[in-house]
């Protein structure tokens, strides 16, 4: 038992240290890669790096772009995903089996195969380069979330729906008044899971945004990392400051809601 605890502690150190170092490095006036540099020293601490990175990439603007991208994906997944999940769980209609199998099949199609054709279609054919719509479109409905919604709606007792139908309620109002309120905690979990994807996504927005004032933070930060950083006085400090700003929302949400990330939906995925 002792050995396991020590192993867990060592593991936790390895996992958390880079984050600690990110924070320390972002606050250092002079980068100090020696061992003693890993400890905060009063004279060497400053918020200058945050100002520096903000001058180069307009953190506010980039954060708003990340927010619009992420918000669009969450909204699309909630509105269309809940409708689809409800229909797949609770409604008998022609083609339900086909849609369900299609959804499972889609899960194994690697997004990378689609990168080039999606780029050609969205950028060249539809002219959606440098637009929020083009950014959001490939992620608009998260299939994993649809699957999770379906699982939750399936768990509700059938009598509830039969009773509402006998009362003459339309399916849309049953969904809105009966089903959604009962699975509200599950919806929060799905929102949190959906959040991580677009917030951290790099390749797709990187491909389709050339205009700086439309780029999400992950893209602007990587551009800074690959091009501008050579010219800055303390490039690592500035990069780490940007990294802290990019990491903070996802990490905070995760720590606050950590129970919701962990429990049911993942285990249902394993058993499925």
């Amino acid at each position, binding site marked *: 038992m002792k050995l396991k605890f020590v*192993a867990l502690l060592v593991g936790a150190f390895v996992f958390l240290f*880079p984050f600690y170092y990110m924070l320390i490095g972002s606050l250092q006036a002079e980068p100090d890669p020696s061992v003693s540099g890993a400890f905060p020293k009063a004279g060497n601490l400053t918020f200058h790096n945050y100002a520096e990175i903000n001058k180069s990439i307009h953190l506010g603007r980039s954060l708003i772009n990340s927010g619009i991208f992420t918000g669009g994906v969450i909204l699309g997944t909630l509105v269309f995903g809940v409708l689809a999940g409800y*229909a797949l769980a609770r409604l008998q209609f022609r083609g339900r089996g086909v849609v369900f199998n299609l959804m499972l099949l889609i899960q194994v199609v690697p997004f990378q195969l689609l990168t*080039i054709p999606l780029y050609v279609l969205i950028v060249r054919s539809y002219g959606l380069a440098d637009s929020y719509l083009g950014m959001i479109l490939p992620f608009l409905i998260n299939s994993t979330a649809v699957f999770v919604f379906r699982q939750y709606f399936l768990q509700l007792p059938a009598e509830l729906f039969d009773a509402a139908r006998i009362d003459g309620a339309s399916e849309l109002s049953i969904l809105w008044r009966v089903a959604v309120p009962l699975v509200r905690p599950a919806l929060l979990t799905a929102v949190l899971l959906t959040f991580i994807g677009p917030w951290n996504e790099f390749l797709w927005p990187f491909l389709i945004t050339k205009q700086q004032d439309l780029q999400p933070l992950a893209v602007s*930060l990587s551009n800074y990392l690959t091009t501008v950083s050579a010219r800055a006085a303390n490039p690592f400090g500035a990069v780490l400051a940007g990294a802290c700003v990019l990491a903070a929302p996802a990490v905070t949400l995760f720590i606050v809601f950590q129970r919701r990330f*962990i429990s049911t939906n993942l285990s249902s995925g394993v058993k499925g």
Partner: protein
Amino acid sequence: MRRGLIGRILGAHPVGTAFVTPYVIFLAAVFAYPLGFAVYMSFHDYFFAAPGAVVERPFVGFANYVTVLSDPAVRRAFGNVLIFLVINVPLTVVLSLGLANALNAAIRWRTFFRVSYYVPYVTASVAVVGVWLFLFNSNGLVNSVLGPLAPDPSWLVNSGLAMPTVAIYVTWKQLGFFILLYLAALQNVSKDLYEAASMDGAGRWQSFLNVTVPGVRPATTLVVLVATVTGANLFTEPYLLTGGGGPDGASASPVLIMYQRGIEQGHPDVGAAIGVLLVIGVLLLALVERRFVGREES
């Protein structure tokens, strides 16, 4: 419930069709059509043209595939991904199962551990790449700790070490997700089996090998598969950690080459062919792994 002819044709709730329509359109537009389009492109001389311009794009058979397969950079990238997988997949399985097993037994600080392991997974790779660059720099913290043992040239600019360093980075980054998968799977291993094992005089290590490992085999199959797919999709890390797959292509990944050929250099047909080959490669690898990892199930 409605019965009769209409019910038999459309099902009891035809409104369901309306509910799934947006999702079906999405799947068709974002997955099915581009999938077919990728295959189409890879067999044609496809190039970028102005929107609406009518251009001829002749069928060229396997020409794009020949271009791809005779390109040493592409072959190197596929080799690199194999190096990546040989390091990443076993390391992922061993570490995530080991840590999940320890975490499952630990009572103290459980939440703290769970959070610490999962934090890298929820953080953007672009953000943590910054720290790793700082840590694995030639005069970075890792090398100052190692002192004379530090490799020369340093980690990310050393052609022998660049890909292994990327593989270790990705293992670290993704491990939390796999630990969670194993934690969920461990809940399903029957307690009776452990009791039976200890009655037979099995020690901790023996009951781990004879009860836990076979008990979580379905999860292991999933972990191996997901880790393989993640590895095949590698792009951000070589692009940012090793300055676009350096040194000299030693850490280039197929997706990185696909991006360079397909978009930067304007040959989407070649890029599409790389994508198709990559997927075929992943499918073959997944079949082999299924045989290898899942053998006792059948």
